[in-house]
């Protein structure tokens, strides 16, 4: 390292995941001296977005560092703990190209054969190759943990309230799909959708509207007697038709046959409560990938004095005899701080006495057309219902308008609770949505081809109850969870912040540019200036002069 970091801080945050970044921002915001470091050379950890090149080179094992002989940097009664463990890593199952590496010269002429019936195998648009995709590598922003945001959810409200919203741009999810009777269907979710849908009869329109209204407005009386029954049974009792039950249960309430009534109602409220704010569905997606979100919080932290250093060779955590945190060893340098916040992957192996009980099966695909083609590009959420004993699966399709992939391509994210392995768990969805070589193309709908696929699992560490009993002033942050939005992450970040700084407000609104004065700006002149101006202008100053006035914003 060609530089030294400052050596005294109030808080050191290790890892740049969402929770860590929110805590860093909140602490800097109230004036605490924050050092935020990451051993990766990118922001986001397990919540990051990558270009195509770097996701192909993703390293998943934590580099476990041995305790160095740095005793001279330790004081008496201090112990050094090594950094990191292998209990909470991402596991890559497979990464596959379904494309030729390069275009062979003779193939170049063949691009027109797409329509030719006998050439079933030439269905892939010949013009795509690995080389060509990799050339566009930087146009990809591939999320490890894609998230959507409820338009009136905790995350959007926090972004707006804290004024972090100005750092990011969003796209509205333009349709919500479900799998019904063997095909994809658009879920009518808003009043205008219900009106214009030709898939539901007029009577169904009324039934659906009435049900949705009662879920939102209904008091306890409405659901009396359903406390121990499923949401499905409530819907059935309301005499909803099969199609309507499907839309409400599997899509709007994002539930299953076993979901309890009150939880289903809660989910329905969450969905409907976010309608009508931005776009046609309740959801937003962060442009250029969900990885932008951690960066937005880190920027706020930096703007309020947080020091940022990626790519740091972290060599150990220093504790005293009472197991209280003292500082970190970063390269050759000792850096002291009062508190330590870290991502779970950084927790010293020696103190990890818990492990992930649950995994999330995930897959990412690059495809050459949308799963449901339309006259315009859509940003699609597909809630794949549980059928034949398979678990529900959440699928997100992103087009080039989201800034996450090049034109004419799509990125499809899929995830579900892990049962066996990512490929096995997601197989039933993949088979239904994408083109398969073995089946000759009898189907009238042209299915998208998978050009590249990536299967991986991440530990679901959310409900582990992360309390580090043996170490003091140390706080651990969970990795990615199953929630569609960041609600659980925000809740945890707030909890950590409040335990460290109980008397401070969590992410109060950052001032707007016009509210900021740089010391030295002479405020008393403001009024005097004014008086002069008024006088001058009443003296028939010309318009020209008026316009040369600086518009200080």
């Amino acid at each position, binding site marked *: 390292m060609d530089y030294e970091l400052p050596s005294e801080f109030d808080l050191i945050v290790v890892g740049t995941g969402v929770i860590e970044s929110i805590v860093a921002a909140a602490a800097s915001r109230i004036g605490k001296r924050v050092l935020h470091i990451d051993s990766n050379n990118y922001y986001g950890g397990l919540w990051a977005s990558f270009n195509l090149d770097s996701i192909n080179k993703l390293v998943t094992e934590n580099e476990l560092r041995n305790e160095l002989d740095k005793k001279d940097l330790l004081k008496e009664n201090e112990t050094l703990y090594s950094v990191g463990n292998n209990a909470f890593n991402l596991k890559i199952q497979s990464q596959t190209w379904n494309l030729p590496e390069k275009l062979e010269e003779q193939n170049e002429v063949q691009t027109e054969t797409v329509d030719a019936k006998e050439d079933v195998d030439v269905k892939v648009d010949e013009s795509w190759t690995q080389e060509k995709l990799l050339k566009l590598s930087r146009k990809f922003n591939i999320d490890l943990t894609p998230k959507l945001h409820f338009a009136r959810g905790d995350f959007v409200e926090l972004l707006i309230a804290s004024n972090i919203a100005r750092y990011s741009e969003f796209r509205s999810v333009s349709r919500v799909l479900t799998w019904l009777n063997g095909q994809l269907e658009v879920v009518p979710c808003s009043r205008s959708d219900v009106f214009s849908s030709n898939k539901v009869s007029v009577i169904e329109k*009324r039934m659906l509207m009435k049900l949705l209204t009662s879920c939102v407005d209904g008091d306890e009386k409405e659901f009396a007697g359903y406390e121990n029954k499923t949401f499905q049974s409530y819907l059935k009792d309301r005499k909803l038709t099969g199609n309507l039950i499907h839309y409400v249960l599997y899509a709007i309430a994002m539930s299953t046959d076993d979901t309890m009534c009150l939880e289903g109602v809660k989910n329905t409220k969450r969905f409907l409560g976010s309608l009508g704010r931005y776009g046609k569905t309740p959801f937003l997606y962060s442009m250029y990938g969900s990885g932008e979100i951690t960066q937005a919080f880190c920027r706020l932290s930096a703007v309020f004095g947080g020091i940022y250093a990626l790519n740091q060779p972290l060599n150990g955590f220093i504790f005293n005899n009472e197991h209280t945190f003292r500082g970190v060893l970063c390269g050759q340098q000792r850096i002291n701080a009062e508190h330590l916040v870290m991502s779970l992957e950084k927790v010293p192996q020696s103190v990890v006495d818990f492990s992930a009980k649950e995994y999330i099966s995930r897959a990412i695909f690059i495809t050459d057309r949308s799963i449901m083609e339309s006259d315009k590009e859509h940003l699609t959420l597909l809630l794949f219902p549980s059928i034949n004993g398979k678990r529900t699966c959440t699928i997100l399709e992103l087009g080039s308008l989201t800034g996450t992939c090049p034109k004419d391509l799509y990125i499809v994210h899929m995830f579900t609770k892990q049962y066996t392995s990512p490929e096995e768990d997601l197989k039933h969805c993949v088979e239904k949505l994408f083109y398969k070589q073995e089946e000759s193309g009898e189907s009238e709908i042209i299915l998208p081809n998978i050009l590249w696929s990536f299967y991986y699992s991440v530990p679901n560490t959310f409900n582990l109850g992360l309390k580090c009993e043996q170490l003091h002033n140390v706080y651990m942050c969970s990795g990615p969870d199953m929630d569609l939005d960041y609600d659980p992450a925000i809740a945890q970040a707030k909890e950590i912040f409040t335990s460290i700084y109980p008397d401070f407000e969590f992410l109060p609104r950052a001032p707007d540019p016009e509210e900021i004065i*740089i*010391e030295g700006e002479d405020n008393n002149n*403001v009024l005097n200036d004014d008086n002069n101006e*008024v006088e001058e202008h009443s003296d028939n100053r010309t318009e020209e002069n008026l316009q040369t006035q600086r518009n200080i914003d």
Partner: protein
Amino acid sequence: MHGRLKVRTTEEQQLLKRKEQQKKLIAYRMGMKQILDSRKPVNPDIYTLWNYRKEVALLEINSNINIEETEKLSNFLENELKLTEQCLLANPKSYSSWHHRYWILEHNPEANWKKEFDLCTKYLTMDDRNFHCWDFRRLVLNKVGITLGDEIKFSTDRININFSNYSSWHYRSTLKALTEECVEDELTIVKSALFTDPADSSAWFYLRWILSDPIVNTEHKEDLLDNLNQLLEIEPDCRWILIAKCWLIQDLHADKSNYVKEQIDCYRKLEEIDLLRKGHYSDKLNKLLSAN
């Protein structure tokens, strides 16, 4: 020490606000002067001024009408259009401004009606409840040969986005007379709206317009009556359904005693649920009772 963040206190912000206000005052005075200099109405609804402008415009038009060089005139008319744009920006519902705009376009032999039409589309996409613009579109439509089908589609699109909109329904009703072929479609779309939200009045008005057309035959009406009865089962307290049911019964079965009873039931119910119009319903009831 320099470079430390300070956030303005309330007093400082007030000072700044005053400063801003002063600036605005100056800008306002300068603007006023400019406006008066160029005889532009500061209030877009002073029609005397608009009429005066029209007279000036006529002079300009007449004096230029025979001159080969049309540039001067078209510049003049273009400026008038710009003026109405500014006025409409200030008050999008200014009758005089909309009228002036159309008047100017009509007096311009080279008026670009297509562009005007596209502007309407853009405007209505942003605010589809401005009935001035819908009216204006209707006038402009007569000047450009857009096909009826496209207009119906435009209106359908607007209604699909938000059907609580008297203007787009009304516009639809002015586009064409109902025909055998389209009456089904219109009944379907209006029923969709009625069932989606029976409490929303706009579609009921459109329904009333459809029913007033003789092309709607008894079969259509019987169908509709069935639908209304289904709807009433789900929404027994919706006054619009009861009222529409009465329209239909009156129309179809005015003289059949069992239907008279249904009508009476409807009005009794209406008296109960719609207190504001209780007198009206009582009146209807009395008429029914005395006639039978």
